[in-house]
């Protein structure tokens, strides 16, 4: 079954009197990678939150397969949102933190799946370490290990996924993105770094200046 298309129509989002963007349209069909670009404060994170269903626009609408996000029955299970904040608790180990997120989102939370995911992200040796003892890059790897648990094509909404990652880490994420796109998943991400993915051509969407 083909993944539904994510569509934003006439989106306007204000912060106080200040419109971060107005009348914004975008379309993300299955198998596509969209790179959302824009200067700081242009509303990239706000747009991702709207597309993930975490916030509501001042006008316009976001649909999943033609249905509003709130009414789309499978959207919650098909969407994976990884924000700038890693959603990891300092007092849990890397393994426990990933286990919680996997179980919360109904993904495979078996020890084998979690070990594999952490190994894929190069965190096998540190999986029993408390999150508080991990570096920024290692924390980001644990948060992104959720992507390695994904088996079905879905929508990935990723806010600066390459932040704090080294070259190896970026390579692993690129490989996961390629694998996901190949199975018919779709991805929208923000990144201040130029994308180095070779197996897919990203659609670039530049956010205009704020008004």
């Amino acid at each position, binding site marked *: 079954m083909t993944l539904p298309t994510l569509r934003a129509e006439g989106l306007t989002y204000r912060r106080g009197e200040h419109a971060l963007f107005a009348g914004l349209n975008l379309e993300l069909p299955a198998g596509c990678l969209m790179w959302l670009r824009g200067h700081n404060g242009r509303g990239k994170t706000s747009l991702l939150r709207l597309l993930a269903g*975490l916030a509501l626009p001042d006008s316009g609408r976001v649909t999943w397969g033609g249905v509003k996000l709130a009414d789309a029955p499978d959207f919650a299970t098909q969407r994976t949102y990884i924000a700038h*904040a890693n*959603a*990891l*608790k*300092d007092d*849990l180990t890397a393994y426990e933190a990933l286990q*919680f997120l996997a179980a*919360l989102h*109904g993904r495979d939370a078996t020890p084998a799946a979690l070990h594999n995911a952490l190994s894929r992200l190069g965190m096998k040796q540190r999986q029993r370490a408390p999150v508080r003892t991990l570096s920024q890059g290692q924390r980001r790897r644990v948060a992104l290990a959720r992507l390695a648990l994904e088996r079905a094509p879905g929508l990935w909404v990723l806010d600066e996924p390459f932040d704090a990652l080294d070259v190896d880490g970026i390579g692993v994420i690129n490989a996961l993105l390629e694998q996901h796109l190949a199975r018919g998943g779709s991805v929208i991400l923000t990144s201040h770094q130029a994308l180095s993915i070779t197996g897919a051509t990203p659609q670039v969407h530049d956010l205009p200046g704020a008004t």
Partner: protein
Amino acid sequence: MTSNGFSVIVQRDLRLAARRRIDALLPVVFFIVAASLFPLGVGPEPQVLRQIGPGIVWVCALLATMLSLTSLYSGDHADGSLEQMLLSSHSGVVIASAKAFAHWVLTGLPLIVASPLLGLLFDMSGDAISTLCFTLLLGTPILSLLGSVGAALTLGLRSAGVLLLLLVLPLCIPALIFGSGAVVAVDAGMSARGHLSLLGALLLLTVLGAPLAGAAALRISTA
């Protein structure tokens, strides 16, 4: 969806509390220490202590519950965990219920366990101590549930702690009145059935309403 969101969240909160034992023990330690100060300040007259005991224990339980409320959602909000919970396929009601339940297990339950000790300190009879425990069993979930609504409403606000107290304390007054009233009634040789029925009705109302209000408040606070 094979996972049970309620148990996943509760288990995680209990595990986190086990890793931060001092933080987890703070409410019950406060409860015991604060209530223990009153006999020292008021004097050792048993009749006076019996009279004021139920009210003091209940007020201390209320304040001890408030202690840990500000951190109910704030940590999850700051590190992005709350967003992930709200994005999961579990409803906001399940999330709010799980957080309130975990709060009650970590705060209310230890208060109930410690309350017989305070009953003895205030020279309460066996019946009065049993009633005190029972009223706390009915009443502390009300405090956790109402507190969770307040914590969700004040999430991310400046001076959230003060606002939370101002919002939640007045709502908890009926539980305080019926809870301590039941113990006073038993101590006076009267039936506590009326107080307990009202406390039970309050619990029922709060169980039905607070998770809905908490879920709505979470959506507003995180939007």
